[in-house]
């Protein structure tokens, strides 16, 4: 797996949300993406996922340009995402929510095959007993699991998770934590935005810190943790150039 972002820029009105971000990795990794509010984390994920079109710069995944593609086309290239505020289809059942992405991307395999796969995914997520419930009846944490399940139904290689632990019951948070590790073991890569520092420092192999649309630190989480620029960014002080 090869992923590369090169000199990515995005502005909204007078605000430069991404100021020439470059980031790359090979193979599968769990990358944590942190930064103070308004630092550009969600903009970066939205731009990778095709929701925002970049002003300039490139995004390539496995050698193919995916910038300027629509979200459904980005998904077809193997890059999927979840939302900070869950966007499960509330008036569909849990099983229907799983079938939608599978049938959208691979309709030729047929409903029966996908229903069987859906049962496997729900078993894995220990949600099989909820398969006929409407998504609107699930808790916030269960809806986050459901979104993870939607990505598992497809051949998504890179999963962009926006605040997967936010507002989730501690028990469910542990489960999500474990599922991410299992999926990583199956060869998936993750780019995870989180404000939950304990989880993100423990889970990530690499930590990227954004501030005002720039990457201010990138490396081993245990090193980044003590980076002066990072500490200053979180304390809200101006960072002076060395």
């Amino acid at each position: 797996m090869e992923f590369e972002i090169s000199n990515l820029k995005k502005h909204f009105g007078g605000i430069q949300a991404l100021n020439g971000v470059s980031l790359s990795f090979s193979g599968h990794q769990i990358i944590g993406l942190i930064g103070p509010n308004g630092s550009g984390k969600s903009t970066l994920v939205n731009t990778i996922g095709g929701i925002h079109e970049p002003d300039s710069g490139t995004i390539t995944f496995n050698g193919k340009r995916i910038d300027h593609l629509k979200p459904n086309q980005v998904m077809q290239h193997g890059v999927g995402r979840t939302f900070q505020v869950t966007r499960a289809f509330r008036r569909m059942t849990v099983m229907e929510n799983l079938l939608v992405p599978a049938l959208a991307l691979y309709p030729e395999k047929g409903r029966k095959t996908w229903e069987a796969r859906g049962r496997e995914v729900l078993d894995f997520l220990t949600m099989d007993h909820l398969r006929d419930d409407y998504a609107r009846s699930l808790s916030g944490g269960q809806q986050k699991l459901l979104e993870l399940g939607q990505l598992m139904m497809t051949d998504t290689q890179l999963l962009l998770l926006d605040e997967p632990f936010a507002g989730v019951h501690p028990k469910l948070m542990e489960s999500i934590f474990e599922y991410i590790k299992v999926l990583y073991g199956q060869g998936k890569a993750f780019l995870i935005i989180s404000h939950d520092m304990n989880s993100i420092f423990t889970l990530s192999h690499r930590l990227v810190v954004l501030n005002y649309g720039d990457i201010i630190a990138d490396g081993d989480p245990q090193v980044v943790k003590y980076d002066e620029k990072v500490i200053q960014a979180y304390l809200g002080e101006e960072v002076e150039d060395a």
Partner: protein
Amino acid sequence: MQYFLSLCATGLVMGVIYALMALGLTLIFSILKVVNFAHGEFYMLGGYASYFLLSTFTGLHPLLAVFISGLIVGAIGLVFELIFLRPIHKGQIERPSEYAVLVTVGLSLFLMNLSLAIAGPIPRRPASFLAGTVQLGTVNISAERLIAGVCSLILLGLLLLIINKTWIGKALRAVSQDKDAASIVGINPLAINTIAFAVGAGLAAIAGALLAPIFSVTPDIGATPSIRSYIIIVLGGMGSIPGSILGAILIGLVESLGTGYFPDPTRALNYKMVYGLVIFAIVLLFRPRGLFGRKET
């Protein structure tokens, strides 16, 4: 009692046909978030298409002409959506709501005047499906209306089956609930928009073609069914499919019973729309979001 049952039967049959048209409007509104002001003209085009098909191909079965009319008008809807509505959803229009009103009203005026130029103002009536009346128990009902009602019922059933059981139905429901989330899971919302608009236009045309042998077709015939459809979808709850069907049947029944029991039979038909509007006002008074309307979350 027999008179009451007969009015109910007519009301039910008309309600099912109204449902077909209202469902088309609901489909377009819930997916594209656009109120189609040309929906009545798709209804009118369906009637004309059926009339000209049956005049040109004399051996053609009237029911087959109805469905071919639906396909022709569906194709017109498809082309219109691709050219005029797709730019809205590609973010190319600065004021999308106003633009949508202007282009659909423009289409409505264009189609009305085009029909006037081609077919003239004289009412046209396609060949009847079946003349006479049918005895259902103690109730007599016009064979034409019964066949139109049964065809509409079959189409409604088929449509509900597609919406609830097939992949395309799931995609339609997903886009109607959350366009961005649908896109993220691999659905192309632009393609779904086009499908929804074409199907909506086709359904209106089928309703028009089914009723053309009963009411005849003129260039301005779409106005009343169009207004009735707006009433039905608001009554049922904007964007709700069960709401549209129930609302249509309710309006069909109320119109039939209101006309049948109006004290002065010579003026009863003049107030046909009023009976439905009274029910509409009462329902909205107690349920402002309509029968099946939901608060968006």
